[in-house]
């Protein structure tokens, strides 16, 4: 008797479970697809939908780079090369090279963390395909420039001020070691 019951039970379970499964799949005929039709059939570019913290291809704002080499030191794979020398006359730092090998970069964000001004930061850009490894090197210094010197008060130069405020805005996203919660969080909670 047990064998017959198992036999019939198997048939019943098979039919009922398939019935349920088919009901679930049938309900998907009237659900909206989740696909994002990257890249061409999108209302806005996908880069613009990405969150602020997105770690895309690195970008350097040379205007506010202090030449402190903190990013170069923090990079675990040495993909950043900075050459900064003291100018013999003016005694200010002069950046003569700031190269990032994007082919090597692993987008960990450790370089932008210690940056004092938010000069080196990640963008939401991720489409970086190119035809050779050499062309993936981002060279930010075209000709030697003087490094930025943080001022005591607020930045007054109208050319640099917006860039600096953007950089500092980037920095506030990072957790401050031992610091209090960033004020942006209070209003949300």
């Amino acid at each position, binding site marked *: 008797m047990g064998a017959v019951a198992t036999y019939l039970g198997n048939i019943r379970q098979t039919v009922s479970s398939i019935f349920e499964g088919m009901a679930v799949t049938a309900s998907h005929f009237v659900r909206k697809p989740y696909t994002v039709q990257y890249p061409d059939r999108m209302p806005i570019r996908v880069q613009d939908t990405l969150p602020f913290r997105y770690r895309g291809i690195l970008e350097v704002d040379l205007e506010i780079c202090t030449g402190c080499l903190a990013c170069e030191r923090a990079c675990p794979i*040495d993909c950043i090369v900075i050459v900064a020398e003291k100018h013999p006359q003016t005694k200010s730092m002069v950046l003569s090279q700031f190269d990032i090998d994007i082919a090597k970069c692993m987008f960990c964000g450790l370089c932008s963390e210690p940056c004092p001004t938010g000069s080196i930061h990640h963008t939401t850009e991720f489409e970086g395909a190119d035809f050779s490894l*050499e062309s993936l090197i981002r060279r930010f210094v075209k000709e030697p420039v003087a490094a930025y010197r943080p001022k005591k008060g607020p930045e007054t130069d109208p050319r640099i001020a917006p860039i600096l405020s953007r950089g500092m805005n980037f920095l506030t996203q990072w957790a401050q070691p031992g610091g209090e919660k960033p004020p942006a969080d209070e209003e949300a909670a």
Partner: protein
Amino acid sequence: MARWPPDARVDALSIYAKAADRFAGKVLEVSDAKLDPWMVVEPAAIVEVCGFLKDDPATAMDCLSNQSGVDYRDRIEVVYHLFSYRHRHSAILKVKLPRDNPSVPTLEELWKSANWMEREIFDLLGVNFEHHSDLRRLLMPEDWPGYPLRKDFVEPLEYHGISTTRESPIIRLDAKKK
């Protein structure tokens, strides 16, 4: 925040004391390290000591949770992390081996999990496990020269004609050593 039960260290120390009592002369050293204390066992006696720790109902180390090798330049240590699911205590055993032809008996008979972990140590550190049933390289290719995790390991520049390194395409302008 209890990151580890506070009595874990006490447990471990009492286990070491017990083992040192029983295997006097074979337990070479019991450390009193601040974080995780350990005990050093004579290589030839490791199976005996571990067997005791496994079979004694008071210790009942039923699991070899981790086994790793460390190259200290003057010696190679194999570290055994034993764990007991029954008593929820752990013990750390070490054997110190010479760097030339390090060899220690296998624990495969006691814990099957030792099989692969010993193969990995053999592969990366070149420790020979005596009487191991299947001592082949696990991760590296069979014909790889040397043992990568040894401190004096130098990576060959090419393997079967394939280059193992890539020159950084960035040329430093000031030609400083980096």
